[in-house]
């Protein structure tokens, strides 16, 4: 009878409960000016914009304090609307309070001249995809504005291991987590050039191209967007 009870108890004795895996996903909070301008005309205005990402890389709405280093040259109001006042140079700053008495700031030099110079429509960012695991993953990439979003063009030197289960590609601001990243799609090309059209995303919205084994929540590789 004791053996019978032991047999009955076996499945319940050894079938475990779900535990916790803690990941170190801290990233320094940051603010980025996302509507840059190099030259503003005297008497003209420009609406600057900024995005704040918190200590896990998630975008968060926070009050932004705008300032100009030379108010005689460039004035700016609390919404980031700048006005060219006279020829010269100034630095535009966007600053966000973190709540513990510290702040994060992003600065951008602006020249005030005769006329406004809009940044080139076609601006290219890019980088190198590198493996952060034992699985093969490498290649170059470029990102350009395209339609209502961006086009990520992966180079012909791209290679990825086909042994990976469920390899996905993301855009993110935290290289240690995809919790707040934008999932693009499951990787279907493992060798050679290909591209991803991502609508509703700006060139400066994300800092990393991330490759993740989604079923096992494991980072496989990354490319810093520069």
């Amino acid at each position, binding site marked *: 009878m004791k*053996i019978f009870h*032991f*047999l009955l108890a*076996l*499945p319940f*004795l*050894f*079938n*475990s*409960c*779900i*535990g*916790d*895996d*803690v*990941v*170190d*996903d*801290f990233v320094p909070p940051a603010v980025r000016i996302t509507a840059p301008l190099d030259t503003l005309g005297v008497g003209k205005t420009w609406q600057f914009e900024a995005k704040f990402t918190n*200590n*896990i890389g998630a975008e968060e709405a926070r009050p932004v304090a705008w300032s100009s280093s030379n108010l005689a040259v460039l004035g700016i109001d609390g919404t980031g609307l700048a006005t060219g006042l006279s020829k010269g140079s100034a630095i535009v700053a966007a600053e966000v309070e973190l709540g513990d008495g510290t702040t994060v700031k992003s600065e951008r030099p602006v020249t005030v001249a005769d006329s406004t110079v809009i940044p080139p429509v076609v601006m290219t960012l890019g980088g190198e995809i590198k493996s952060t*695991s*034992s*699985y*093969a993953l490498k290649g170059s990439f470029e990102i350009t504005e395209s339609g209502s979003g961006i086009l990520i063009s992966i180079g012909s030197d791209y290679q990825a*291991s*086909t*042994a*990976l*289960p*469920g*390899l996905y590609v993301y855009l993110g601001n935290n290289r240690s*987590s995809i*919790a707040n990243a934008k999932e693009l799609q*499951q990787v*279907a090309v*493992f060798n050679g050039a290909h591209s991803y059209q991502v609508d509703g995303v700006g060139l400066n919205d994300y800092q990393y191209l991330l490759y993740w*084994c*989604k*079923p*096992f*929540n*494991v980072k496989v590789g990354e490319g810093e967007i520069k």
Partner: protein
Amino acid sequence: MKIANRAVSVFTLLLVYNAAFAGGGWPQPKGWGFFKLSQWWVVSDQHFTDSGRIDPNTTMGIFNSSLYAEYGFTNRFSGILYFPFFSRAYMNNTISGTTGETLIPGEAINSIGDTDLGIKYGITLNKPLALAATLTFGLPLGKDNGGSAGSLQTGDGEFNQMLQLDAGTGFKLGNVNLYSNLYAGFNNRTNGFSDEFRFGFEVGATFLKNRITAIARIQGIQSFKNGDLPSERSNSTSIFANNTEYLSFAPEIAYNITEKWGVSAGVGTVFYGRIIFASPAYSVGVYYKLTK
């Protein structure tokens, strides 16, 4: 075995653990049998990659409560069943170390597991060298795509057939009874999975008035890498993956409580692997020997 493949892995890691007083080149005599209720489990936060190195993964666990049975229909033919009647696979929560929030909630699935049905034929009987051939059918009764990401599995989703040849012999060293067994098998896998070559060698010793049997096993799987399973459908690195390979050492010890009843415990450690969990698997069980 999908980052370790089901029928092969499960068969090797689970079923072969049941070999105390069963398996090898010796079929059960007519009317005799061996029945074992086992618990087998592995919990792993790392796996062997396709290059043979070890990478981390979210902690996952697989637990099988199973019945293993061998029964002699004749002196040459034995039927074999491995039936995991309760199989559980789970994945841990992923928690932010910064905020304490749950980033990805853990999941679990429960089901019956992939089941093996086999028939063993004794090529030689009552000879110093016991030869047997075993044909095993791996029935995909488990789940191969559980959880929101499809990574929780209690089976690999493919029907496989394995032909295995065993050669065993018994001998004595002093007062200790020993046996050794060598096997090799071909596992034909379907549904895009690669076929496999399986092999193993074990030595067992019975002592303390036949109370204790200690077994040491070395087992391996070599993939032919001839499957065409697309990587989009490959969602495992556990024990159900495709193109899994490994070499393992799996000792087991059995204690005969009576002539018919006994208990056993074993551990399996993979010291070379590709696309399989890189953590030890454990098993405990109670067995019953049906004799005349």
